[in-house]
């Protein structure tokens, strides 16, 4: 049962989560250790999610009709901020709680999401996002994966790449073509595909920082019931834009929670680096917190950031880079001798900060979106 006081008062909720963290539950204690091995990190974070679900904390911020306990995205923002303050390093593998799940909660399919949401929140199931294809990256509307109606199911055939967390995922949100190729963005539909189904093949891609968060996924005539369409038939572009509004806008809030920890933890302890660089990074984080915080407030009130989310994403990337520049300046071991777990993780994070300008739409596409939609340039 939800506590009405905690639903109504985000500050009281944050204090309650803080109190729970202070008791040092074993799942939390395990998650705050540096864990460079990605598969281990996934297990440990799944356990933490299970503990947060059992205690009820992760259910706040989600509708009761979908297995949550009520409240808004502000509750979720407060929970992850509190976890970060207690030493959790990232959302590792659960980023889609704040990228995909808000869209699933908003656009359905309701019956399916009512089952899937608690399973995801509790860490029992995980999600992947299947947008990009070998020939459709920035030009997403050119994607070719097809979904063909066959009785009461659609049969999906095609190939996705850079599919996030597919190796660890249970479900994949797949954007597929239900119209003609010429229909571009108008002929797309979003489906929830079971990654365990025969005909789905996942090939994890080892990344430059040693993790395998991304994968190439092929779908060979995989049946998906029509009841697992997210949003409307041929309404996949709207679903994609809803997701990108979160991925570029509000997700930045959740990411910046961990940035303070990165900056303060790794720079304060390290050898002397320029105070100016650290101060500039602090300013960059504040800009992300302020813009994404506005996104949180808007979403909590039922509005959205819209194309302005792209600005938040640019600011997030700037902050990632300036923090990691400061970290690198004080940690030569990151480049030469990442022998202990902490330094190995620092190296992963530093390298990742060089590619953040690609995910969720490349930086050049974000700049074009701003030029076209916000500045209305010719």
């Amino acid at each position, binding site marked *: 049962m939800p506590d009405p006081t905690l639903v109504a008062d985000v500050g009281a909720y944050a204090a309650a989560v803080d109190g729970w963290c202070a008791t040092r539950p074993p799942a939390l204690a395990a998650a705050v250790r540096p864990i460079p091995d990605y598969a281990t990190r996934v297990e440990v974070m799944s356990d933490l999610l299970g503990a947060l679900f059992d205690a009820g904390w992760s259910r706040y911020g989600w509708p009761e009709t979908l297995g949550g306990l009520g409240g808004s995205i502000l509750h979720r923002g407060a929970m992850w901020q509190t976890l970060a303050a207690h030493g959790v390093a990232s959302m590792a593998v659960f980023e889609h709680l704040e990228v995909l799940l808000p869209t699933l909660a908003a656009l359905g399919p309701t019956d399916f999401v009512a089952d899937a949401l608690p399973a995801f929140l509790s860490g029992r199931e995980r999600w992947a996002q299947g947008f990009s294809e070998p020939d459709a990256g920035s030009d997403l509307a050119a994607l070719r994966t097809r979904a063909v109606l066959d009785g009461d199911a659609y049969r999906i055939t095609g190939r996705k790449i850079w599919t996030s967390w597919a190796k660890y995922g249970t479900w994949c949100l797949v954007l597929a073509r239900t119209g003609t190729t010429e229909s571009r963005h108008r002929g797309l539909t979003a489906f929830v595909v079971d990654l365990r189904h025969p005909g789905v093949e996942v090939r994890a891609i080892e990344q430059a920082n040693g993790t395998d968060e991304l994968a190439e996924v092929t779908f060979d005539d995989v049946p998906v019931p029509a009841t697992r369409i997210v949003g409307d038939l041929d309404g996949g572009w709207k679903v994609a834009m809803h997701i990108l509004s979160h991925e570029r806008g509000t997700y930045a*809030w959740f990411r910046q929670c961990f940035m303070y920890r990165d900056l303060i933890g790794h720079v304060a302890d390290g050898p002397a680096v320029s105070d100016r660089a650290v101060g500039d990074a602090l300013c960059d984080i504040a800009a992300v917190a302020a813009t994404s915080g506005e996104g949180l407030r808007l979403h909590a009130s039922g509005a959205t950031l819209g194309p302005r989310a792209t600005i938040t994403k640019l600011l997030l990337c700037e902050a990632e880079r300036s923090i990691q520049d400061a970290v690198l300046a004080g940690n030569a071991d990151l480049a030469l001798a990442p022998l202990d777990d902490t330094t190995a993780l620092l190296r992963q994070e530093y390298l990742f900060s060089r590619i953040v300008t690609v995910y969720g739409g490349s930086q050049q596409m974000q700049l074009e979106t701003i*030029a076209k939609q916000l500045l209305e340039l010719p």
Partner: protein
Amino acid sequence: MSEPRSRDHDEFLAAARAAVAGSTGADALDALGWWDLLGMLDDPDARAATFALFRAHGRELGDTPALGALAAAPYFATDDGTRTVMAFSRPATGGGFAHTLLGTPVTERILVDTGAAAPVLVEAAEVTLTPVAVPGRLTIHAVTVAEGAGIPVTPADGLEAARARSAFLARVAAAYEILGAAEGAFALAIDHANGRVQFGQPIGTFQAVRHLLAWAVTDTRAVESVTDVARDLDVAAPPRFDEIVKALAGRNGRRACERSLQVLGAIGFTAELDHHHFHSRVLALDAVAGTSAELATALGAWVRAERPDPRIAPAVLSA
């Protein structure tokens, strides 16, 4: 954006721009009811109106002593009807302090607080004002205070509290004015990108130019977001948030002007276009109440030494 709070702020800004445009001096502040507003800064609407005035001041290149008046207010418990402005002090080359008055000076009293000694209130007749000629359509005077001049000021709430409040208000207000001036420079660049034709098409069709402008609006949006948080949270803002706001505003304000200048090309670096006024206004305001370089360096040292908690809590966002 259609939420009520944002609409109110848009209205404040439009009204402030109309009021500031074309008016100068302390008389313009009188017309705005400015001196009454200073006593009401605990009220969110009064605070929003006050800060909107500074954004308008930058956007319209207004020339009033509003910033010095705002900075002086926390030193005095009640308004006795006398108009006081603060001179902004900074360490001078070769020792001592340099004092600067911004805006057409009010004639009555000047507050001087170097931070190194007790603040003093000097009558205008006791100081020498030397005009400084820089662009920016902002009247600037170097202030020379005679040795031993003035009477000490003892703020009712204690000196440190008054200094902290003064610095908070001055930094956030200066950040808003930097924002407005940077937006002014940016607006010129947008006009130019839409109108200037090269290679048979407006230069705003070229990605190299489009991306420069997209970065410039990102620079200003960052400043807008942190200044709005400071305005809304006020005394509940995270520790040293005013310094973060001012450091970010100075840095990003300069960046936005530089990117706009690059889009404008050579015409932007002439007296024929207002860009240099906006740019100089940003430079002037970056230099008062802590430059972006000074503040960022101090903030970095603070982070390293004290591991502070500068987070913005979601609970306050919804307030």
